[in-house]
């Protein structure tokens, strides 16, 4: 162990002598070098921050003079730079030196360059403008023959490099992957990894080279490439399953000690490499039995080999345990891993104990008995003096909470909460307590009191969902009406007691919750009159520490109560007080109250008792104002313009002088600010109907605001959700479980009772209260996620459905011309469609698809052969006829006939969905499987056609698709076939939905069948899916485009060079339309507007502008990653053609 030997500052003078540069260099250097020394000495001698500041400012001004003096040599500059770095590190601004640092890197010799690069990488950040000046130098150095220069350049590239300049150095760095020196290869791999992190699309084409790096003869290069693989596998594990074997082999070699000795660290072979590999294996083997099976051996070996003699072997072991529990389980390994966790948890070393708890937290969901084994250790950790250990323990307890130990665990959490000060800890913990309380609360009193604690501690930092959920729970209630009332009554009573206390301050959020509850449910009180409650609220209203937002809540509560009170002086006083308030909002409320107060009948009908959950009918279109508007317009008033439009116009007016004087530098002209490219079309909206725009605005505003807070969803009848609840609430025989566990625990107690001290007894008691309900019988209600737990407060399921209603409504609003309704109707038809009513439906389909696809010149699409299954006579879609084309049957004559009939059907029905050519994905002597894609409007339909080539009958043919990370795959009905006749073809259909944007993905699956009752066989296949399979044209008008454009925040711009064949805008757009399925909305001069959507409904807009042979693409979308991916596809298309 090489501890740093402390040298005192008295040793300073001697040190300076040593530090004089050897060999008597130039006097200038010596003096500069000691300048740093004297600076440091000066600073250490100072006593106050203020003096230090003065000294450094002095130093900085002298440095400023030196660096800008023309006489300063590069050598002196180098010394100055080190001092500047020192000053920056202490937090002083040395920005005047940044440009000199770049100069030094550009002009200096090797050593000076090194300092220059270091200074640049410490001073600047990736998007600093000065960094552009460095690009050329980096390019030059990358091409240098000097190894050190190349290494320096690679280092700086991986530390900071402007994202948009990556193409300039990318080919050079790619070349370095073949460099003869391993250090260069290794740095190049890491630099490319960095590029992958900041701009994944730019390095997509070199993934194949990473594979080469993985197989590099040098271990270091291979290790570096693991960084990339870890990352990419995390993003999409299914694409790299084929590498599992390689990773396993590498790990085997490392574990087996096949690496050169110099890779050993404390006689452990390459520990960091092992850790990395284990993590990769864990990701690969997750939920994948076959991949996991490949790695069982090597994991077993790793567990066995890890002799616990050094810290770092624990690191490997921990990773190993993690992997064993991540992959498809194998009981032998799990057993061994559980033992290892024991080693961690029971270790006296605190670091290991921490990791042990972490591992327990991780595995507890799979194996709750482990927590029982270590319960005493967990209890000890709960009172550990290290807060980090405590936190981890609470995290563990959170995962084992159930209805029986909830009170103890929440109490422990609250104790911790009262001690902690960090905001993020409070937010996190408060959220957990609220969640647990709602799920497992034993009784009303406990629930309300716990929530009171949550609100008073969590206060104004907690997540706003917590009070909202709480209020919704109270308002909507649960199954039992009397129970509901009791809970509400208890809440009211407890708040009144809290408000009675003098000199206690509650957070604003808590006060808001109280005022709402009191306003709604004070009527449940029998003793206290509404007047008394009003008096209490009035007292709060007069309190200066209450925010005006809370006051609005309070006055709303008073208003509700006033209708119940017979007459109240307090209300009159309040009205009197606040009608002259300076706060306009309060004054408004007060006037409302005043007018309502004068008309009690109206008030009672307006504010009925306990109706917070009833639906309100709101005329969102404000149609009753139509007359008023028309009158205004006829008197010459300007029509209403929505806010964003006004801003737009203001912006364009400000820019009125900018007539693109620098037309040649086109990339920025016309693109400045948030100006809409659809500005022209927006102009037409000015004369539009004010009521219509107003309607949209109010719609989006009102619905959301009201719904979230109060739960007044009007979409579903209440009855339905209630019946759903009843059927969902399964009673669980908790009693028996409790008894079982109690018995187990008491047994344990008895065995230990002899050696117990009193303190230990207390701990045991705590343990038995904490770990009650844990055990093999009760695994179900261990986890919060388990559905069968009978929750006390079962929230009604309305909310989610209402939300989905909300989204569809916004969807309808945004793409108004997209008739989602007819789509739905059409869908139903599609599923039920076999033989019946074809004529009728065909007509419908024809009109529908022609509407969707018109003008998109389908016949030119490269992949597409139009084809309609409707005209085929077989009920199984796409079956025989289609297959014949790809698997020529014995009788050619028949096939010719069939093909010709098929061709004629192509001609007849040119408007069905586009589909790809069938591709054979796997085959053997009996069957062959081919697949093709059908790009339906709402999803991607994958069809796998299975042909039985043998002369025998196949039994129970079944096709299964493995779940993939990015996709949701749904089986269409009729996919399992009991019998498959000889030489027949059947097809399986799956609809695929995308879950998040990506570029390429893989779908794998297998087909299994029985032959002649004897042997069964299984055949595997995989299909590539691209993002384009999920892109559909979005048909909107230019007006909608303009509105949408402004509402999207994520944008990406890029210039693409067009090939000569498509130099004109229309042809370029046509290419995009055909290959990417974008919808062309409008072409205005040299600008074009396009739109598309990623299924199910993520819109993306594209604005194109042509200048000479450059096409400027500008994407905007509501999804942050989609523009990037689309841009990549566009580039590919434009460059490809």
């Amino acid at each position, binding site marked *: 162990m*090489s501890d*740093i030997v402390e040298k005192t500052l008295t040793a300073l003078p001697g040190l300076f002598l040593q530090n004089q540069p050897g060999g008597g260099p130039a006097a200038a250097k010596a003096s500069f070098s000691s300048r740093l020394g004297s600076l440091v000495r000066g600073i250490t001698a100072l006593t106050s921050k203020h003096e230090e500041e003065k000294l450094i400012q002095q130093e900085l001004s002298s440095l400023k003079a030196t660096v800008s003096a023309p006489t300063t040599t590069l050598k002196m500059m180098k010394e100055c730079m080190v001092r500047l770095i*020192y000053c920056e590190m202490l937090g002083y601004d040395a920005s005047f030196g940044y440009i000199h640092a770049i100069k030094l890197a550009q002009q200096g010799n090797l050593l000076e360059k090194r300092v220059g690069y270091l200074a640049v990488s410490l001073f600047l950040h*990736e998007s600093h403008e000065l960094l552009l000046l460095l690009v050329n130098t980096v390019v030059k150095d990358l091409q240098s023959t000097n190894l050190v220069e190349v290494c320096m350049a690679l280092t700086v590239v991986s530390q900071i490099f402007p994202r948009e300049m990556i193409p300039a150095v990318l080919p050079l760095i790619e070349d370095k992957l073949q460099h003869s020196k391993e250090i260069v290869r290794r740095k190049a791999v890491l630099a490319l990894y960095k590029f992958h992190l900041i701009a994944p699309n730019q390095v997509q084409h070199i993934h194949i080279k990473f594979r080469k790096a993985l197989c590099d003869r040098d271990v270091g290069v291979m290790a570096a490439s693991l960084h990339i693989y870890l990352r990419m596998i995390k993003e999409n594990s299914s694409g790299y399953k084929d590498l599992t074997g390689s990773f396993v082999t590498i790990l085997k070699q490392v574990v087996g000690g096949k690496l050169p000795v110099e890779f050993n660290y404390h006689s452990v072979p390459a520990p960091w490499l092992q850790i990395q590999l284990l993590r990769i294996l864990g990701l690969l083997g997750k939920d994948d039995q076959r991949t996991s099976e490949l790695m069982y051996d090597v994991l077993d070996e790793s567990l066995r080999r890890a002799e616990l003699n050094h810290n770092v072997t624990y690191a490997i072991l921990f990773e190993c345990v993690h992997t064993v529990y991540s992959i498809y389980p194998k009981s032998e390994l799990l057993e061994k891993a559980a033992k290892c966790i024991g080693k961690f948890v029971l270790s006296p070393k605190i670091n290991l104990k921490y990791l042990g708890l972490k591992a327990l937290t991780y595995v507890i969901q799979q194996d709750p008995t482990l927590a029982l084994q270590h319960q005493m250790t967990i209890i000890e950790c709960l009172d550990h003096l290290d807060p*980090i250990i405590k936190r981890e323990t609470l995290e563990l307890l959170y995962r084992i909470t159930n209805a029986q130990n909830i009170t103890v665990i929440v109490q422990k959490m609250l104790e911790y909460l009262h001690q902690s000060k960090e905001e993020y800890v409070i937010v996190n913990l408060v959220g957990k307590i609220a969640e647990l309380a709602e799920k497992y609360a034993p009784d009303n009193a406990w629930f309300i009191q716990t929530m009171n604690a949550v609100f008073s501690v969590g206060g104004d930092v907690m997540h706003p969902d917590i009070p909202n959920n709480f209020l919704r729970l109270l308002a909507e209630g649960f199954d039992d009406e009397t129970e509901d009332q009791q809970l509400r009554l208890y809440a009211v009573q407890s708040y009144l007691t809290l408000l009675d206390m003098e000199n206690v301050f509650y957070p604003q959020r808590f006060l808001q919750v109280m005022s709402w509850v009191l306003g709604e449910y004070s009527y449940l009180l029998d003793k206290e009159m509404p007047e008394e409650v009003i008096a209490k609220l009035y007292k709060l209203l007069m309190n200066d520490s209450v925010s005006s937002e809370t006051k609005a809540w309070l006055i709303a509560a008073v208003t509700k109560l006033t209708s119940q009170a017979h007459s109240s002086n307090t209300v009159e006083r309040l009205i009197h007080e606040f009608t002259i308030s300076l706060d306009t909002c309060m004054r408004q409320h007060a006037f409302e109250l005043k007018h309502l107060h004068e008309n009690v009948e109206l008030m009672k009908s307006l504010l009925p008792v306990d109706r917070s959950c009833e639906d309100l009918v709101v005329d969102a279109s404000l149609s009753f104002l139509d007359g008023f508007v028309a009158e205004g317009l006829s008197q010459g008033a300007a029509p209403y313009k929505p806010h964003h439009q006004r801003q737009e116009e203001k912006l364009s007016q400000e820019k009125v002088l900018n007539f693109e004087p620098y037309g040649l530098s086109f990339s920025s002209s016309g693109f400045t600010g948030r100006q809409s490219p659809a500005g022209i079309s927006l102009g037409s909206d000015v004369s539009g109907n004010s009521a219509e725009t107003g309607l949209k605005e109010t719609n989006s505003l009102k619905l959301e605001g009201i719904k979230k807070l109060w739960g007044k969803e009007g979409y579903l009848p209440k009855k339905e959700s209630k019946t759903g609840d009843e059927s969902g609430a399964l009673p669980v025989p908790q009693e028996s479980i409790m008894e079982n566990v109690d018995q187990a625990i008491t047994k344990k107690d008895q065995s230990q009772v002899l050696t117990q001290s009193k303190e230990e007894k207390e701990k045991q008691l705590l343990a038995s209260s904490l770990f009650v309900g844990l055990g093999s019988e009760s695994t179900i209600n261990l986890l919060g996620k388990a559905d069968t737990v009978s929750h006390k407060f079962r929230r009604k399921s309305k909310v989610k459905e209402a939300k989905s209603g909300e989204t569809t409504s916004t969807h309808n609003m945004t793409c108004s011309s997209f008739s989602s309704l007819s789509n739905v109707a059409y869908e139903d038809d599609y599923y039920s469609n076999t033989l019946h009513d074809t004529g009728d439906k065909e007509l419908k389909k024809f009109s529908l698809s022609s509407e969707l696809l018109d003008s998109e010149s389908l016949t030119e699409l490269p992949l597409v052969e139009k084809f309609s299954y409707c005209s085929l006579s077989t009920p199984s879609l796409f079956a025989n006829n289609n297959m014949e084309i790809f698997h020529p049957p014995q009788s050619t004559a028949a096939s010719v006939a069939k093909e010709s009939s098929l061709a004629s059907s192509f001609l007849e029905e040119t408007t069905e969905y586009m589909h790809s050519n069938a591709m054979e994905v796997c085959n053997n002597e009996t069957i062959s499987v081919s697949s093709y894609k059908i790009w339906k409007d709402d999803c991607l339909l994958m069809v796998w056609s299975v042909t039985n080539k043998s002369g025998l009958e196949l039994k129970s043919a079944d096709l299964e698709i493995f779940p993939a990370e990015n996709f949701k795959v749904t089986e269409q009905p009729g996919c399992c076939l009991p019998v498959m006749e000889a030489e027949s073809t059947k097809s399986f259909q799956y609809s695929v939905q995308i879950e998040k944007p990506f570029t390429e993905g893989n779908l794998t699956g297998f087909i299994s069948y029985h032959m002649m009752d004897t042997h069964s066989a299984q055949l595997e296949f995989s299909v590539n899916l691209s993002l384009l399979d999920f892109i559909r044209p979005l048909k909107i008008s230019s007006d909608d485009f303009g509105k949408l454009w402004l509402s999207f925040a994520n944008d990406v711009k890029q210039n693409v060079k067009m090939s000569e064949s498509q130099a004109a805008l229309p042809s370029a757009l046509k290419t995009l339309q055909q290959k990417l399925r974008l919808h062309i909305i409008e072409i205005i001069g040299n600008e074009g507007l396009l739109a598309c959507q990623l299924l199910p409904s993520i819109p993306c807009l594209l604005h194109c502008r042509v200048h000479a042979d450059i096409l400027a693409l500008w994407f905007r979308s509501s999804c942050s990653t989609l523009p990037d991916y689309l841009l990549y596809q566009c580039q590919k298309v434009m460059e490809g053609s």
Partner: protein
Amino acid sequence: MIQAILVFNNHGKPRLVRFYQRFPEEIQQQIVRETFHLVLKRDDNICNFLEGGSLIGGSDYKLIYRHYATLYFVFCVDSSESELGILDLIQVFVETLDKCFENVCELDLIFHMDKVHYILQEVVMGGMVLETNMNEIVAQIEAQNRLEKSEGQVLG
């Protein structure tokens, strides 16, 4: 990924500050101070891991530190790094410093700040662990030192 590497002494004076993620300068200084206060509170016999301060991103990030005589070495990492692995990486870094400076002490870190950065660059590059083999790191540094000498002769 490693977000930041901070070295400061027992009084919180920064000795080496290297961020791999972009933070504005004043935030960087606050992070150093915050981290120092978080670490200072802790005894030597409790665990070497703690959650990052609120400035650096809270519980998504871990601070992993070691205390040597007068100096704290703190690595701030995200969840993709192994805690114990980083703990040993700090040890490798410090042992390498020790080899390069022969009994390294706080003053070496002050007066040869640039060299310390060069050594660090060979261990961690752009937030990724580049090399953990001490001999290899020392060899790289020595190659650079040779360069320094040869250039000294040319110019001197």
